[in-house]
């Protein structure tokens, strides 16, 4: 079986396999953030929706970032928001704040100013009166970090 160069190349070309590697960006929740969320939520399922998180997508100064969380809820005696919990991904501590309300709040909305130590994800979770949990996440790019700088 004479193997010529031409035959060899023809054969090699026909059996060349193109390996297809798909790299999917995994929305990995860091364990510390996950643990903090589970601490509040327990084993309950967290659904996405209902909650709105207003935070600038790009902040120059992570020392004071305005943030508003609102939840679509009629705020009646049998359908209201019990609490809103806000978490972050990369600060030294995953908690930002817990806010407790009741039907007499009239509107499920809270605003504050927060610190962000790095470009990261902020997660807001609402607990409704039927003990269901709803969440939303927002990515924030921070150019000047908070928390960890040296004091003068």
């Amino acid at each position: 079986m004479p193997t010529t160069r031409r035959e060899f190349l023809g054969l090699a070309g026909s059996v060349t396999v193109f390996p297809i590697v798909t790299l999917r960006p995994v929305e990995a929740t860091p364990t510390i953030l996950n643990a903090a969320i589970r601490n509040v939520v327990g084993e309950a399922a967290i659904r996405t929706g209902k909650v709105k998180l207003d935070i600038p997508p790009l902040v120059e100064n992570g020392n004071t970032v305005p943030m508003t969380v609102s939840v679509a809820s009629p705020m009646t005696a049998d359908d209201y928001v019990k609490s809103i919990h806000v978490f972050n991904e990369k600060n030294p501590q995953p908690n930002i704040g817990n806010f407790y309300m009741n039907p007499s709040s009239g509107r499920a909305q809270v605003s504050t100013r927060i610190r962000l130590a790095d470009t990261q994800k902020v997660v807001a979770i609402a607990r409704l009166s039927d003990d269901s949990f709803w969440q939303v996440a927002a990515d924030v790019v921070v150019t000047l970090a908070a928390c960890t700088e040296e004091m003068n």
Partner: protein
Amino acid sequence: MAALINVPAKARRGDTIEIRTLTSHIMETGFRHTMDGVLVPRDIITSFTCRYNGTEIFRADLFPAIAANPYLSFFTVAKESGKFEFEWIGDNGYSSTASATITVE
């Protein structure tokens, strides 16, 4: 400590009103070091409560990720004339109060 409270002086019964509060506090995170490498101890407000004629209407647990001079805005339904009382509690026995009145027609 000084606090700034913004509550409408008058409201109609049943209106949803916004309450805004700002208090002066360093909110030292406990994660910063001095130039000598010494850790600066944590000194933050950990809890905020608002009562409307004695009934708690809003409460918050604060963490080091809340910016210095904590600002909080929230809502309530104006039910009756009376008094809002605000209380901030924090590390090292910190406690501060403020109040505001409202006339509901």
